[in-house]
């Protein structure tokens, strides 16, 4: 029980107080900077596939900061984070299924 309390206090000190507030504003400026860079990049004429990869990489970075710092998942027990995040691996299979079987299905329906 004591170790539980200690862990709780440590998590508390990371989410409460002047240092925590400062960190939150830092995350805000980071998210804003990434968004501005993204909008700027949308007007460049770099290879479209490369650009899309960059956009999705930035999106994952933004998601990491929102979930980790705004939703405090970084300060929760790691077991909880695993349970909540692991199911999203299934989305990879979903994308594969939608593209691969979706293409076959489209072929059957429209013949092209």
């Amino acid at each position, binding site marked *: 029980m004591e170790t539980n309390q200690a*862990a709780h206090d440590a998590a508390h000190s990371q989410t409460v107080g002047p240092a925590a507030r400062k960190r*939150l504003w830092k*995350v805000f400026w980071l998210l804003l900077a990434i*968004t501005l860079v993204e909008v700027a990049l*949308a007007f460049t004429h770099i290879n479209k596939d490369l650009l899309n990869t960059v956009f999705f990489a930035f999106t994952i970075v933004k998601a990491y900061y929102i979930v980790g710092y705004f939703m405090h998942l970084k300060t929760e027990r790691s077991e*909880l984070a695993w349970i909540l995040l692991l199911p999203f691996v299934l989305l990879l299979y979903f994308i594969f299924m939608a593209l691969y079987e979706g293409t076959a299905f489209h072929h059957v329906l429209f013949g092209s």
Partner: protein
Amino acid sequence: MTTEKLSIWAGGKSPFSIHWGKLYMWIFLVSDAFTFSSLLISYGVLRHKFLEVWPHAYEVFVHFPLFGEKSVPLAYVGLMTFILILSSVTMVLAVEASHRKSKKEILIWLSLTIIGGFFFLGSQAWEWTHFIMGSEQGAIHLIKTPDNKFNGQIAHWTNEDRTAIILPDRTVLSPSQSTPYIANSEKVEGANLEVNEYGPPMFADYFFGVTGFHGFHVFSGVAINIIVLILVWKGSFDKSGNYGIIENIGLYWHFVDLVWVFVFTCFYLV
């Protein structure tokens, strides 16, 4: 009582050391995230299928308040994103204040979050209005084309007099080449669920569906925030000193921001 160390799964205490309400909120958000994932993945697959005729976001979302018909691409969604991120910070600051049981600060930050939410909803209404009304020029819906290749698709004007068009595969035609196309077509202005001037019907359908579903989440979030604001203000949590509900609505609000990050990428950037 044994002195050996028991695993956290042995019972008698919360293995995740969080309140059940927060755990429920997290599990709900995971399920909601899967709903949005399904929408976005199906959007991606269909868009991939119609890649050649799919419109570019920077050609569709070009309006900005007070700029009239002048083209300011993507600036407005950039502003909407800024508003939502800002309201996320004010929300997390309300959560921080709730840990210190500072009722006054909770009221301030939560009020600012609600204002941010209203700004976002208003912006979305504005964006939708322009999307539905369309451009001054409009476009044409090709009913029957000479080679039957673009039947039912959208072509755009390339000049002010509306005599020449650009085909869906981005082939530019001269006025004389355009005539047979224009003869069997009808004018389209703006967007609805059946036809839109920007591209395939699917484009507007997904735009309305996904941004609408997200906007509805924002609307619910604002409503929930207002209810909790009133409860805090009335002093419903004064006696217990337990402001856990702020953390739960905070999770929901950040999730709405998180979804927007993905919607923004899929609909406006890619």
